[in-house]
């Protein structure tokens, strides 16, 4: 098989047939292979974190804590949600320019910025959580225990989520860097 055979083969290939109705469904996010799951995850996390904010306020004397402690907690949760939204938008928009090289370069740049933002928002969230719980609270042994358990659970969840996200970003970043290096 030489290059001319390959050309003939390529030009005759790709004979699959997808109906117009199926193609129409493919234009919807609700049928998208990854965005659909991400969107559900995003909505669930946002609802869960919002509920959590109210629970914190009542359960851990939010009204007796300084305003800045509450504001920091809300901000850290908003940053976490923003981070997830950015991840969603990143996956939703892989085409960023009119030629492939420029598009991949821009995409990689966004990914790197997102990776830094993700790291900073995770650290900010963890620190804020610790700060909030240790700030002007009248500790009883049961509250100590509850705080420790909650902090440990959240630290583990966020660490796992961050690690998983970072592995994905690193792998993707390597693939795109390879592409850019290959055409340089």
């Amino acid at each position, binding site marked *: *098989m*030489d*290059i001319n*055979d*390959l*050309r003939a*083969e*390529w*030009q*005759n*290939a*790709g*004979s*699959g*047939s*997808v*109906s*117009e*109705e*199926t*193609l*129409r*469904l*493919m*234009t919807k*996010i609700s*049928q*998208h*292979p*990854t*965005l*659909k799951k991400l969107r559900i995850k995003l909505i669930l996390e946002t609802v869960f974190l919002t509920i959590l904010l109210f629970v914190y306020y009542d359960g851990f004397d939010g009204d007796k804590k300084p305003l800045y402690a509450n504001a920091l907690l809300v901000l850290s949760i908003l940053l976490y949600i923003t981070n997830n939204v950015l991840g969603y938008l990143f*996956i939703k928009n*892989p*085409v960023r*320019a*009119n*030629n*492939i*090289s*420029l*598009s*991949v370069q821009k*995409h990689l740049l966004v990914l790197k910025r997102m990776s830094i933002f993700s790291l900073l928002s995770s650290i900010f969230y963890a620190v804020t959580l610790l700060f909030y719980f240790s700030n002007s609270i009248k500790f009883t042994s049961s509250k100590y225990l509850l705080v420790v358990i909650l902090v440990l659970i959240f630290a583990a969840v966020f660490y796992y989520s961050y690690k998983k996200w970072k592995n*994905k970003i690193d792998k*993707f970043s390597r*693939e*795109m860097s*390879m*592409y850019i290096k*290959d*055409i340089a």
Partner: protein
Amino acid sequence: MQQAFLKTIQQHQNIIHKVSRMYRDTPEDQQDLFQEIVYQLWKSFPGFRADSKVSTWIYRIALNTSIATFRKQKIPVEYSEHISDKYQYTENQDVSENEERMYGALRQLTDSEKAIISLFLEDYSYQEIAVITGITENYVGVKMNRIKEKLKLILNK
């Protein structure tokens, strides 16, 4: 607008099939990529200007999407999970041995080489390939020589 889009894609869907098969190894991943490409084409359709060839636009979006989307981890995927009965992706199962051999060889190339060779095999000129990929025309020539050598080695193994 959607009707015009669907007609256009249906007429040119062979490009998306070929690009999906070249960039992904398993039928599940190929199907996901096909779907992703159609979604990206739909998003960019309002900005598509009729002064460029439809096939060029489809190739640009399809290749870009293939390179810049997450590859799934190598774990088994439930194929029918998100595809209902009315949502069938049917690839021609009667694929010739030569076609299999071609995809097998093309999959061994790097992402950028795949983009260049697919356009070359579709009879795009070096100048057109340069515009779509964003590299210089001279460098397309250099890359093509390397790719041809590489493919010769792969196919003669």
